[in-house]
């Protein structure tokens, strides 16, 4: 499988630049997920790789060869579309075999391939149905099947699950992850759903405003977000942000804001040595707040519980901290009541700090 490289890829619509010089390298047989809010340029990037959008400047390399001047059909890739893009007048078998029939492959080979893929996707009983006679999930499977019969080196997915209802989406996500294990190809997947991104990706590329914000493994991005956008985008419920002042008290650095004053440990003190006196955005994930009535106030937040969203085993508390809304995730059987003032301990190693002006992560 080839490696794919984007070099200073730019897209202009008229005078409006929507992609600002994207640099990205995708390794052999890697599952890359482009994720970001709508309008961030992720779909445009994918469509440029597919050849459905022209490249304004920059270049796409496959195994070192520039391909941006090639027609989609000459790029050796298959694509799954958000609205499935099935051919309405062809039955499932015809839909899946369209590319092979255009290539004038022998009938035997086509039939063999179709029955293999249909078997794998559980579509064997539906081969003679037209797309209109299928449910959403089945249509989605046919779209995948059509891509799979192609034997292309690269698969592109443009928000393939976003037209499905919530339950089906979870199921198809799992099926995709299973398929991923069997099919060793380059896969580039676009989604706005960070859960899809986290669960499927070898490498996540977080995009916003036509720029790549950060890329790396899901774990790396979750633990070490490079800026406030990435920190707030990945993870549900999203990260809490609080404004705090850095000050020095005795030999310790203290992060203080309305309603809290946190004392840093040795490690954080050393890291923040140069920032004393400045302001900082404090980021804490809801799962990193630990309910602990006995906690010391130097290492905990005192929160007023306003609302509890019961999810099942877990609940999300929406709390107030001197006017700021803070979300906390904890086990549903924790004995707490609404309206209470509770203490939540914070492990300083889990705290993320961001420069309030540039929004970049500190240290």
């Amino acid at each position, binding site marked *: 499988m080839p490696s794919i490289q984007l070099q200073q890829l730019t897209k202009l619509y008229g005078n409006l630049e929507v992609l600002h010089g994207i640099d990205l390298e995708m390794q052999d047989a890697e599952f890359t997920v482009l994720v970001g809010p709508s309008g961030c340029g992720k779909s445009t990037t994918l469509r440029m790789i597919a050849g459905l959008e022209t490249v304004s400047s920059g270049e796409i390399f496959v195994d070192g060869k520039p391909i941006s001047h090639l*027609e989609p059909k000459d790029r050796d890739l298959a*694509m799954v579309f958000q*609205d499935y893009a099935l*051919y*309405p007048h062809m039955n499932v078998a015809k839909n899946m075999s369209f590319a092979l029939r255009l290539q004038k492959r022998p009938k035997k080979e086509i039939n063999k391939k179709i029955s293999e893929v249909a078997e794998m996707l559980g579509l064997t009983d539906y081969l003679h149905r037209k797309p*209109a*006679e299928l*449910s959403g999930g089945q249509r989605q499977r046919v779209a995948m099947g*059509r891509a799979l019969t192609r034997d292309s080196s690269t698969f592109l997915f443009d928000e393939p699950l976003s037209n499905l209802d919530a339950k089906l989406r979870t199921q198809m996500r799992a099926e995709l992850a299973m398929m991923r294990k069997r099919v060793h190809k380059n896969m580039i997947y676009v989604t706005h759903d960070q859960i899809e991104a986290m669960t499927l990706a070898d490498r996540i590329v977080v995009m916003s405003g036509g720029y790549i914000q950060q890329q790396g493994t899901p774990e790396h991005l979750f633990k070490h977000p490079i800026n406030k956008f990435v920190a707030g985008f990945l993870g549900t419920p999203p990260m809490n942000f609080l404004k705090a002042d850095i000050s020095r008290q005795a030999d310790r650095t203290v992060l203080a804001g309305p309603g809290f004053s946190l004392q840093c440990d040795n490690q954080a003190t050393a890291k923040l040595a140069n920032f004393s006196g400045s302001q900082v955005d404090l980021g804490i994930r809801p799962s990193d707040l630990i309910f602990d009535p006995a906690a010391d106030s130097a290492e905990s937040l005192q929160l007023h519980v306003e609302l509890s969203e019961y999810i099942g085993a877990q609940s999300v508390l929406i709390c107030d901290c001197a006017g700021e809304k803070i979300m906390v995730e904890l086990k549903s059987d924790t004995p707490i009541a609404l309206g209470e003032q509770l203490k939540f301990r914070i492990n300083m190693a889990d705290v993320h700090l961001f420069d309030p002006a540039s929004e970049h992560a500190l240290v």
Partner: protein
Amino acid sequence: MSYSTLNRLTPYIFLVPALVIMAIALIYPLGYMVYGSFRSWDPSQALPDTDFVGLANYISLWNDPNFHESLMVTLKFAFSVVSIEMVIGVGLALLLDRNLRGMSLLRTLFILPMMIAPVVVGLMWRYMYHPSVGIFNRSLEGMGLGSVDWLGQHALLSVVIADIWQWTPFIFILSLAALQSLPRSALEAARIDGATGWQQIIHIKLPLMMPVLIVTCLLRLIDAFKVLEVILVMTEGGPGLSTEILALRISRTATEFRELGVAAAMSNYLLMLLLLLTIMMLAYNKVLEVRAARARRIAEEGL
């Protein structure tokens, strides 16, 4: 009358003016014609004074070689113009379905002929076909190619050309609308699946446009069977009977031959032909609806 009854009747009240006009302008003359077609009827007589002749008018027409000739001319004319217009209209739509600078102006220009009154079109083409001063023969002679006897020897071909010029735009705009409502992503999928421009047209675009094309074709066919003004102005049916389409023969039978009963019977033959086409069109739409409903049902039930 209670308020709720009035409320329920409102839609019908709104329909009444249209119904009245329909009755006066369509149903009454139609009934008059059907009634008249069974009678021996001279224009000097009032209809109640005429003699009932049963199916005699229909039978004599059935055996009349001139009527056959007229029917053949009409069929030849209708099928040749519609098939050529379909090819050119759909072809133009396929060519112009893209975003180029000035495309909207170009599209407007293409549909202009359709907006000109048929009589004007007839006059225009008659002048252009004029044997000595018409632009066609002047140009041909200027190039040293000799003149063509457009409205004489090649009268049917000439009126066919004029009709194609006027009505291709109708097929063009409907095909273009059909093309632009095709699912974009299916076409993109076809490009990725490796379809060339031609293959996209043959395997994706044309099959998906087919429902619109079939209805357009039938509409055009119905219209072509009723053509009158252009031919009346250009050739008056001549030379001989070579361009005498049914509508012309009907009017000549009524006015020149003074046989209103026969003319009415002929109108009824034409009406039956058109009804057949209309029923085909409605039946086709019904089939599509039933098929779509069946697909929906299968999709919902058969998981």
